[in-house]
């Protein structure tokens, strides 16, 4: 059943996807805040690194130094993952129009990320728009060939880098760009506590959804594959836990991971 699929880095998920992701396509990881989206996407890149692939993490939601600190507790060999800081600076609210992310920004390896947050320079600030980010990624992809790319998060990109009236169209174009660049990409999408599913999920080739439920004994986490174009997939919802080693998908009874087909 493998058909050249690539591993996700989360063993139980590979089985749910009947082998892994079909390469060179964009996928969505959606879930409520704190459901484990960033951890899952980090595992996706880690799998690539261990196979000798080049991997890029585009940070739009949190500063890279914090991501690095947060991942420290997993003790993963993340040093070779390249990180592109796409966080906007503090806005200056000056009459001059948007100063876009400079196209000279380079991805930095995780091991070189400093412990302190990058400060907004005094004389100018850069703001990221979807247009500038796309241009920057294009240049980056021309220079080097990346196999796996994570955009964390699409919600931030939509919220802070796009104008409201063109969100869906621009999102579509951004995903098209990723597909044309022949990278397998994982985009994280934050889901509200209740309400509609954001449009990104319609556009992606597959959606892995993380669920977070609260009951008397605390927060329970579940994972499901909502959609997977071009492949069969497991239709059950499985519980998972975030352990020292990362995300571990359990079988429905809470025991071992779902059995392979």
């Amino acid at each position, binding site marked *: 059943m493998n058909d050249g699929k690539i591993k996700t880095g989360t063993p139980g998920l590979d089985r749910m996807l009947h082998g892994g992701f079909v390469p060179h396509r964009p996928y969505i990881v959606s879930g409520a805040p704190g459901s484990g989206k960033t951890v899952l996407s980090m595992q996706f890149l880690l799998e690539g690194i261990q196979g000798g692939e080049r991997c890029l993490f585009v940070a739009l939601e949190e500063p890279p130094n914090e991501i690095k600190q947060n991942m420290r507790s997993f003790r993963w060999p993340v040093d070779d993952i390249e990180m592109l800081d796409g966080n906007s600076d503090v806005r200056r609210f000056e009459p001059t129009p948007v100063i876009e992310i400079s196209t000279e920004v380079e991805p930095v390896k995780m091991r070189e990320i400093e412990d302190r947050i990058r400060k907004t320079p005094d004389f100018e600030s850069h703001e990221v728009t979807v247009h500038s980010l796309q241009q920057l990624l294009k240049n980056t992809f021309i220079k080097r060939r990346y196999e796996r790319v994570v955009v964390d998060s699409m*919600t931030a990109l939509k919220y802070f880098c796009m104008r409201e009236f063109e969100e869906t169209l621009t999102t579509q174009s951004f995903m098209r760009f990723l597909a044309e660049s022949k990278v397998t990409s994982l985009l994280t999408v934050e889901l509200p506590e209740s309400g509609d599913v954001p449009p990104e999920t319609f556009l992606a080739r597959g959606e892995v959804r993380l669920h977070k439920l609260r009951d008397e004994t605390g927060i329970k986490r579940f994972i499901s594959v909502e959609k997977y174009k071009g492949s069969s997939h497991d239709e059950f919802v499985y519980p998972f836990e975030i352990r020292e080693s990362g995300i571990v998908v359990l079988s429905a009874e809470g025991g071992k991971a779902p059995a392979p087909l």
Partner: protein
Amino acid sequence: MDRISTGVAGLDTMLGGGLIPRRPYVVSGPTGSGKTILAMHFLAEGLGRGEAGLMVTLDEPPNEVKSNLSAFGWNLDRLKMLDATPDIKAHKRQRSVIDVGTTLDVRDMEQVGEIRQSSGIRALEVSVHGIQKMLKQEYFGHLERTKQPYKRIVVDSLTALKMFSMQGEDSRIMIQSFLRFLSELEATCLIVSERLKPTVIETEFFLARGEIRFHKWLDGNVIRRAISIEKYRGSRFDDRIRPITITNAGITVDSQGSVSLTAGRLAKLGDAYLEQRIGDEVSTVIERVMKLIEEANKMRVSASDVEHGISRAMLHLHRKNYQKALKTALNAQSVLRERLDRAKQGLPPPPPRAVPPPPGVRK
């Protein structure tokens, strides 16, 4: 990783030791649930350790904050208060918005006196940008004066600002920029905010590195409070909802205690539970009276008025009029008990009490 204490021991336990420093966090919950008190715990804890703290107050004028907190025995004299409450709107035609940035009102808690009067000439309206400017001025001013950066900053609250000063798409970008600004100050920040709509991802919740949520609901006629951690980046945390109490010593978290139900359904289920309990109570009393009536019949003691009373109680129970049902049933019970006791002792029955006639029977 080093952690910083919130000032509430039980909450620190829930957070796995405290907050990861130099990051912004959100404190959410309904009004009157304890958000501001937590913020004050956090600042008081800092002051106790000699860390400079700043409170940006947007909702209440500083004098009210001061008097509200005087009941708690905290020494907050050295706490800096930045008064960012908007003035009375001037409703002038020429310029609609004047930023707060023009006057900076920061003072020690000690010196907070009366409410600041709106200036006759121009009114201050508050915007995120204005606050950002004020905060920056104060942060670097303070750094220069005392050679000490602010370690702890509280913004109380963003809700009013969101509701009144910002509408439309810009608000996301404004708040994003504000949070970035707070992150770059490298102080640990608590942002008090209310989640207005569960269907919308609100920017500060989305960007904050953690969310501490307060819950408040009515259990019968008692207000109950609880606290939970909804999100906490980069750390393990206690994922249960824990009960809290607010006393003169501030917030106490029962970090071993448990709350049986989730917050959204709590109110409704609390009522349902209470209803069931009263219902049960009434039916046990009625059953008891029925037994007494049986006994009375055996002893040839008249109980017809009590029978009427109990049928009325049952009617009330059926109509879910629990209080009346309980009252009537208890009354019937005590009347019959007394009568039976007297009969057992061989005493003559007491003079009949004035039991109102059953409904529908008129003389």
